């Protein structure tokens, strides 16, 4: 019988998830007693939902830890040794797209945007915009690791662009755009993509893997904001056109 380390350190994962849930649940229960006073059956259903969330998160985090984290590292190290280094750029682009496409909290954002706009803004539009945004980030991150150009000007230029685009963006999109940065840097990005970037930087040698990894996350935080601001500008232009036509 071969030994499969699928449950290693799962207790840490369970403690982490319970810890993250508990203050919010406690806060809710206090409000429930003091002022909400929702029907008992309803509260029990909510708590069942929380239990399902808890089990789901434990499975998800553990799965990411045993499968995606080492896979990202291995692929990153492998990529650091290939000769046609430029291949890393499209490859990073693809990994960025696919992992955001699978990111659970991005799905929650898309769902909330679609329901609270009554379907006016499609969830799939947000999903593709974020996936492409992260793909660009990882591609740029690879260029940066390959050619070693400095990080600060990219970040400075990026946020300067954010400030400029913000002036022309439809107001419906501003909140969503800035929220999206936090959702795009979810567990898939932070474990898989970061492990990949650190693996590449590590096998290239002569770089600081810790800071390269962080740099990658900073880029992943930036591009979704830019993408959604651009979509907001396009929406605004379309609205104007419709106004002129009618």
């Amino acid at each position, binding site marked *: 019988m071969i030994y499969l380390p699928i449950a290693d350190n799962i207790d840490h994962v369970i403690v982490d998830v319970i810890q993250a849930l508990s203050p919010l649940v406690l806060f809710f229960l206090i409000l429930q007693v003091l002022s909400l006073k929702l029907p008992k059956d309803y509260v029990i259903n909510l708590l069942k939902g929380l239990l399902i969330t808890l089990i789901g998160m434990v499975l998800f985090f553990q*799965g990411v830890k045993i499968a995606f984290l080492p896979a990202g590292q*291995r692929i990153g190290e492998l990529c650091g040794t290939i000769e046609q280094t430029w291949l890393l750029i499209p490859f990073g682009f693809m990994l960025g797209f696919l992992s955001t496409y*699978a990111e*659970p909290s991005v799905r929650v954002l898309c769902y909330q945007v679609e329901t609270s706009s009554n379907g006016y803004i499609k969830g799939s539009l947000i999903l593709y915009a974020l996936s492409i945004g992260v793909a660009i980030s990882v591609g740029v991150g690879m260029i940066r690791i390959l050619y070693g150009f400095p990080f600060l000007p990219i970040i400075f230029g990026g946020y300067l662009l954010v400030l400029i685009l913000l002036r022309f963006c439809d107001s419906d999109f*501003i*909140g969503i755009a800035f929220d999206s940065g936090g959702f795009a840097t979810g567990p898939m990005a932070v474990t898989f993509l970061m492990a990949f970037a650190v693996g590449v930087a590590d096998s290239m040698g002569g770089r600081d893997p810790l800071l390269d990894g962080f740099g990658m996350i*900073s880029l992943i935080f930036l591009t979704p904001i830019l993408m959604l601001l651009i979509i907001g500008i396009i929406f605004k232009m379309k609205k104007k056109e419709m106004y002129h036509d009618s």
Partner: protein
Amino acid sequence: MLSDFKSQFIEISKAITPIILVILIIHFLFIPDFSISNALVLILGSLMVTLGIALFLVGVNVGLIPIGNAIGSDIPRSGSIVIILMTTFFLGFLATIAEPNVRVLADMIQIVSENSIERLQFIMVISVGGGFFIATSIFRIIYNVPLAYLFSSGYLLVLLLLFFAPPDYVPIAFDAGGVTIGSINGPIFLAMGIGVTSILGGRSAISDGFGLIGLASLGSVISILIMGIVAL
């Protein structure tokens, strides 16, 4: 709930299959010492991830989102702005402390700063920042302060701080912006903002309900840049 799970599971399987296939193909083709037990762990882990996300999303829809909505629509009822701001500050503070990623980041900061910044001190600073900005965003929804003002002045401040902060802190600061929002406090804050707009008249969920997460992230970025400047 069961049919919801089934449809989520199918949806997530479709979302996650491409990345799993890419990973498996690369492993089989290019990694020479890729053993059967490694392959099994990869496949089992992927199954856990798929099942985990599907359960998580079902749970979010029937648990976290309604809870966030309920908290959000209850907060403005107290009528006193002081109580509203105090409770939301407290909630944001606790939710940030509880986020596991914040602790991971705190360890990293300790390494980068060569122990000049204490772990606990860092966690406190970032959580106070989180609480402060969550309260600010509730304030802005109630008093209708345009998000564009808050974000442009916030990021303008960030750009200014970039000139003074030590270079090592910059990537960590933006990383903090991302990680303080986790898979649990993210959906709850999102639903809370929308809940607050639902109870106040004349607000639209789409343009007023969002922005909480973005402001909390901005708070973390600013607080770490300032920490870096202070630590110089």
